């Protein structure tokens, strides 16, 4: 079947000016475009230290030795190849009541993946709901974007959200620390702050992209409602009026603030994006302002 692309060519051309940024320094292989405070083999001078046995003689600062008669070793910045992992929520709540959030998350994931590929990052696309689904690792330039976009386009809503299981599986599957971008509505009945804290405690940098539909924050209905939760099928009957709507919105905003606090506490970032904001505007607006992209 002939599907429409997740992101169009014009948008991709605009994305080529962007770069994924993270705030933490991670040890790793040389590569990528993010500076590291870790010393190691590299090109850019970082500091001196005393020479120890076994150190590479090529790094000795011979000029300092001639003047001070002490061996100092020049150390350099390591330019690590830090993996960037995109966790895309594919739970059924993302598709409730329509597929707005789900489609938006897939398109946003594709855009971030393209930005990373252009800057020669190694991108891991990891869908999740109550567990981690099959992932796709890609890197090596923009010409690898095709399989990634196809992978995202083939995703379907499945399962209910469990951040605890997801975090557990993630930490065991990806021991190397890196930038973790989570695109989700963060709606987990058992809570998602604790699992996210676990992940942050393991040294991963969190970039939480909170996607919601307008009716998730401001329900338009009024009167007697029979609510059905999309994932569990749990029902609830209530009268809903303007006052209740305000209380609902307050609870939603409090939850979003909780996520923001969690991210900030762990040197991460939180970006909330309603689906009513066009994707291009979201990428060059909130995401750039939050220093997730530059």
């Amino acid at each position, binding site marked *: 079947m002939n599907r429409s692309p997740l992101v169009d060519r014009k948008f991709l051309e605009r994305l080529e000016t962007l770069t994924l940024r993270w705030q933490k320094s991670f040890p790793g292989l040389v590569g990528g475009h993010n500076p590291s405070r870790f010393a190691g083999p590299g090109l850019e001078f970082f500091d001196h230290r005393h020479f120890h046995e076994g150190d590479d003689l090529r790094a000795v600062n011979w000029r300092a030795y001639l003047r001070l008669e002490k061996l100092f070793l020049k150390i350099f910045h390591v330019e690590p190849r830090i993996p960037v992992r995109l966790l895309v929520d594919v739970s059924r*709540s*993302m598709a*409730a*009541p329509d597929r707005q*959030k789900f489609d938006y998350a897939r398109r946003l994931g594709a855009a971030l993946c393209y930005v990373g590929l252009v800057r020669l990052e190694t991108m891991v696309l990891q869908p999740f709901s109550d567990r981690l689904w099959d992932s796709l690792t890609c890197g090596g330039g923009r010409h690898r974007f095709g399989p990634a976009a196809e992978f995202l386009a083939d995703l379907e809503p499945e399962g209910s959200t469990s951040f605890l299981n997801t975090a557990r599986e993630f930490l065991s599957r990806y021991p190397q620390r890196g930038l973790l971008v989570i695109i989700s*509505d963060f*709606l987990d*009945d058992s809570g998602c702050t604790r699992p996210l804290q676990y992940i942050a405690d393991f040294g991963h940098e969190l970039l939480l992209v909170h996607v919601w*539909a307008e*009716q*998730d924050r401001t*329900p*338009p*209905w*009024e*009167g*007697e*409602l*029979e*609510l*059905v*939760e*999309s*994932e569990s099928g*749990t029902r*609830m*009957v*209530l*009268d*809903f*009026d*303007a*006052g*209740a*709507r305000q*209380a*609902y919105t*307050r*609870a*939603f905003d409090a*939850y979003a603030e909780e996520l923001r606090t969690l991210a900030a506490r762990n040197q991460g970032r939180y970006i909330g994006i309603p689906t009513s904001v066009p994707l291009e505007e979201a990428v060059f607006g909130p995401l750039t302002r939050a220093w997730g992209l530059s």
Partner: protein
Amino acid sequence: MFFLNLSVGEFLALFGAVSGLLVALYLLDRSRQRVTVATLRFWQPAAVPTERPRRRRHIRQPLSLLLQLASMALLLLAVAQLRIGAPTHGPRDHVLLLDTSAWMAARTPAGRFLDQAQQSALAWLRSLPAADRVTVVEAASVATPVTPFETDRKVLEQAIRASEPGWTALDLAHSLAFARRLLALYSRNPGEIVFAGAARISGEPPAPSALPSNLRLLPVRSTVSNCGLRRIAVRRRTGAAPVWEVLVSVRNDGPRGARTSLGVSFAGRPIGSRRLSLAPGEESEAVFELRTRAGGWLEARLLPGDGFSLDDRALVELPGSSPVHVMVCSDRPAWLRPVLAANPNVEAEFVEARRCTPASNAGLVILDGVAPAAPLTTASIWINPDARTSPLPVRQSVPAADLRWRRDQPLTEGLRAQDFTAATTSVFQAGPGDRVIAEAAAGPVVVAQPGPPPRVLLGFDPAANRLRFELATPLLFANLFRWLAPRSFDQLALSVGSPGLLALRLDASAAPDALRVNAEDGTALPFTLHEGELRVFVGSPAQIRIEAGGRTLLSSLTLPETGERLWQPPEGLRRGVPPPRPENYGRDLWKILAVLAGAGLLLEWIWFGRSRAHRRPAAAPVPAARLRDLLRKVS
């Protein structure tokens, strides 16, 4: 209290349907909505503990429903035009037949008859209750409605005042039947058929039993003396081309005997006059003779004038007549003179054979054994041409031959003579397209060539043998003249009459394909042909031209048709303007009801509607299950 527009049953049925629809929409709007959401965690703090009893789950905001139902009921009452009062009868629909026949143009010192009829009609109109509807119909030879059933008195009065007399007579029976049909088809509550006019009718008056029971007469004092021209007929006298016979018919339409003077003039010069004494209803004819070939206006006038001046004078244009110029080249003209003198439309010129030079104005040239000096450009008859100069090759010359007419040719029409023997005859070599009129055993001896120019060749000398004394000879020449110079046989007649149905009895020989009926500007008029009678209807003054074969009738339909008699209505009919009738149709409440209904709907919207504006998203679909539940509730 009663409804003006609807019956009680209709109102209840309509209200029931609207109420059902309203309740269904209400339940659809207020019923519980089933919504699928991503999570319930934010709904918990928003949940309002409900204390409503279970039975109110179906009917919430009952005041809103009551307000809507009451507003709808008020709106329907306004539509039904609820009135307070006890009506004796409802508003009625009337038909006003205003006589606009030609006779209504007659004038008395008090004014025209039509003016009287208009005043009576206006007075009658003012006597009606305001809610009664009236349609104005102009009645003449046909009935023409001017307004629909209308309550607006200004429109009706304007229509009455704008009516003018026509040119045709009144067909009362037709107008009454038309009024009946109007009431039967378009009236809700039939009222009266009112006839205002002089009622001078043509044809038979309607039978008293056929008169509508609801007929009211607004009679007009139509006593006026009138002698009028009824018909003028002009035709050429047979055998004398420049003489026209003018027949003028005059009728006395007044109630008393009258003496009048009829004068006829042509091109301003009087050609005759008559003094006529006519009894009431008597019609008299006078014949005048006019000798002229020139064209001009023929006028007939009655003196002194009377109350109806339109039929005191009539004009008809006589066309000029010019005979066909026939040039005869012959050295023995004596035998041809009687043949040519018989037709008054032929002017013959005899020329010696040796001087035969056809004139340019010749319509026909007869060459008796001679050939012209120059080729001919006009129609010609060649009698016994020389073999060397004959326009058709002469195959041989036979000394004596038995000749035989060809009956299949139109040119032999009427030739009943037996076959005959000619002395010396030339036999022609007929070409393709040539028509053989007579032939001998050796070949054609009389040949017609269609041309142009057309010509006929006779291979023998009609004057040299027995054929000279046969009837076939002038008939043959008449046929040849009719074919070669058709104008010489044109029959022209003129008439002056009245617009309306014109019937003309045609000759049996008149071919239907050759019939032409044209107006003055040349446009074709529709006509019917039934059992040899041609009928044309002309509703207004006009000049028409009817051509049927060689016969032409110019008819000037400019005399008014005054009708033949005054209608004497039977006793017992309602007459005159009735006294003004008080309107007792109750007080009209629809405006108040409509305002109340609007206020109710506005209140409902202010109290309940504004909060519903954001109640459901526009794109939210109504699940089929919900619809089924709703229908179950409603049923």
